[in-house]
């Protein structure tokens, strides 16, 4: 688990993907990217989200999620989470989950389960910044 200041930029995402490719018994990688939407809330458009995190607990919970995934899906070889903290603009990426496995079914199933657990268990909070507000 890595907490990254600001958005997860394409270069970083590419680096993580390239770095997970090495193992010769890996046949499949399933990835999830979470991106800030320009949602309309009460007539106002979201310009950015400021993420805050209880960092020590995020790391603990991410380790638990990792253990759950690796024990529940025996074919999974590697698992990584990157999450933003601080300001992420609409259209930018705030979450990356990558699961590497021998075969496709376990990679995809483990990725779905991991994303669910991240949403339920990671102590992270959002604060919307709207287009009609000044930048912080």
């Amino acid at each position, binding site marked *: 688990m890595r907490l990254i200041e600001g958005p997860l930029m394409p270069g970083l995402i590419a680096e993580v993907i390239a770095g997970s490719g090495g193992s010769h018994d890996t046949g499949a990688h399933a990835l999830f990217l979470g991106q800030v939407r320009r949602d309309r809330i009460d007539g106002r458009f979201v310009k950015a989200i400021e993420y*805050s*995190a*209880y960092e020590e*607990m995020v790391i603990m919970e991410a380790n638990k999620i990792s253990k759950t995934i690796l024990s529940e899906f025996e074919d999974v070889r590697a698992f990584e989470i990157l999450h933003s903290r601080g300001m992420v603009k609409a259209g930018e990426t705030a979450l990356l989950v990558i699961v590497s496995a021998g075969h496709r079914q376990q990679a995809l199933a483990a990725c779905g389960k991991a994303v669910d657990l991240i949403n339920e268990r*990671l102590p992270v909070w959002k604060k919307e910044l709207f287009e009609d507000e000044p930048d912080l």
Partner: protein
Amino acid sequence: MEITVLFFGILADATGLNAKSYNGIDSFDDLRHRMEDDFPGIFHYNFRIAVNRVITEDNPVLKDGDEVACLPPFAGG
């Protein structure tokens, strides 16, 4: 006992603080009253309590130096 209380998400906005230290605390109930005095209505917010980064039930036993975190519903991802 000395207890550090952490505020996250909407509770950081509501209290205007990320953290506050309390001295001379006897129990969680005592802490609760002191927090209510400082931040009237805070216990009307929907949040859970973690003691030393582990989510606990309603009335945890505290010891000196514990970190009590107030956690509104998570919204990561």
